């Protein structure tokens, strides 16, 4: 009995991991499928064709390029803006500070469909034509919060003695910021940027509302799902998955190298857990 019990938890964990990873396996597996009909639901034969001709489906290349461009610029803008907000919140005491905190957390605790719908009403009422720019605006909006949370967490246990030492040695504030603060914050900022990029590339709901005629990769998949999803969609998704995995691994290695505490090498995804409920109830 005891021997069974000892293996119960590991066995359970194995099953749970199988469940979590099965769909990923399926996505990758079916990227090598050679469907004869329109549907890519049933395995019919192995081929590399879909990988070699990943852009053989009309529109897919444009959608992927649009997604990458959007993710790149909205991540850069949101990371810069969000880092500034984090610095402002952690480093300064001012009236309305808790209000700023709430404003930062609210977008994360609002259902995406409400975010998308409300942005659409703004653009409609202001007679702004939806398209690339409006998607960019929306993406920056929802990425900012995640950047603030990630950078803030690092800033809170930041050793300020280093900055004081720099100032004692004659560095002015700008030099101190550039030579001490920024390099020490860099891992957190990079984590935030990676998270932002991932959120942007993956976003469907908000983008769907404010996209107008512009098609990102998730929107392309949505359109394809109404008729039939070509295996090339699996190819792109698998490629994105593998790249994300590599980047994560590299990030973890880099963080270990730069001598951070081990438990901080947590994947950069989802830094919300502890702070969100506070924001909701306060």
């Amino acid at each position: 009995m005891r021997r069974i019990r000892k293996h119960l938890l590991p066995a359970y964990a194995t099953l749970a991991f199988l469940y979590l990873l099965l769909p990923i396996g399926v996505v990758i597996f079916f990227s090598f499928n050679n469907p004869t009909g329109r549907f890519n639901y049933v395995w019919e034969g192995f081929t590399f064709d879909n990988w070699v001709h990943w852009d053989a489906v009309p529109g897919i290349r444009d959608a992927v390029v649009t997604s990458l461009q959007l993710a790149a610029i909205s991540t850069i803008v949101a990371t810069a803006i969000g880092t500034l907000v984090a610095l402002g919140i952690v480093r300064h005491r001012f009236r309305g500070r808790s209000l700023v905190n709430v404003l930062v957390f609210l977008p994360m605790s609002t259902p995406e469909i409400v975010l998308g719908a409300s942005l659409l009403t703004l653009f409609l009422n202001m007679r702004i034509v939806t398209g690339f720019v409006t998607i960019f605006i929306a993406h920056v909006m929802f990425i900012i919060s995640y950047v603030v949370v990630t950078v803030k967490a690092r800033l809170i246990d930041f050793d300020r003695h280093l900055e004081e030492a720099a100032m004692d040695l004659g560095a002015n504030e700008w030099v101190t910021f550039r030579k001490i603060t920024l390099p020490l914050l860099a891992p957190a900022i990079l984590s935030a940027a990676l998270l932002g990029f991932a959120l942007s590339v993956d976003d469907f709901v908000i983008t769907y509302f404010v996209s107008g005629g512009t098609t990102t990769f998730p929107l392309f998949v949505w359109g394809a799902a109404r008729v039939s999803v070509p295996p090339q969609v699996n190819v792109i998704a698998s490629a994105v998955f593998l790249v994300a995995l590599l980047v994560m691994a590299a990030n973890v290695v880099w963080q270990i190298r730069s001598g951070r505490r081990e438990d901080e090498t947590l994947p950069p995804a989802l830094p919300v857990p502890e702070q969100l409920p506070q924001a909701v109830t306060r």
Partner: protein
Amino acid sequence: MRVLHRHRWLTPALLLLPGIAWLAIFFLVPLGFLGYQSLQSGSFDTGYSFSWHFANFSDAISSYDTQLIRSFVYAGVATVVALLISYPLVYWIAFRSGRWKNLFLLLIVAPLFVTYLVRTLAWLNILADEGPVVGILRAIHVLGSDGRILATSVAVVAGITYNFLPFMALPLYVSLEQIDPRLLEAAEDLYASKRQAFLRVTLPLSAPGIVAGTLLTFIPAAGDFINAQLLGTPRQFMVGNVIQSKFLELIDYPAAAALSFVLMALILAGLLLYARVVGTERLTG
């Protein structure tokens, strides 16, 4: 620099300005417009105009009460199932997995790296009528000979559970990981059995994780429309599907806006109720 020194408030103001302005203009103001839109009357042909038309709200609730209730039931079931699946798993990672912790955590978030829509579509492959899962269930007579999983509530709830599971698992992991092992040793020294130690020490200390995970799973799940759209039929549609189609297909903006507000209000009410039940101090950690 000198100006910044003279006016101490200037630095935080400058730091915050771009971010706060962006969030105010593209998050708060749109919510205002959503409210404005929800009180308009008229039709697509004649145009909509503002008229304090509160009937939009009562109409939204009475016409779509099934979808509203369904959204909350699906989200509730998915949240509970996600908690039941992920608790033992992250417990094992936090206490038993040894030096490969980070790798296992990576495996938990791995599904998030596959495009949301594509990983949902993968369940179409897995649960397909000709697929292995349905085949086995038919063979052991859990399903009838023409029984299926796709296009049922089970498929939609399963999809939601799968998609939001990492949001449950991560905060749970964080709270379990923070538990001081000496507390468990102390419990054993005081003759607590394994079960007692779990129920009296581990479980209460992981409560903040359960609370955070529940929120992070329930909120997006209640507003979801992708799983119902891809894995279900209109008979499984949730309130998100209605909002989406009214906004983007039927162009019935006032009704869609009112329904969005109802969804948000219900979620907020649920949050407050939840805060009452679990206690605010636990929520604020």
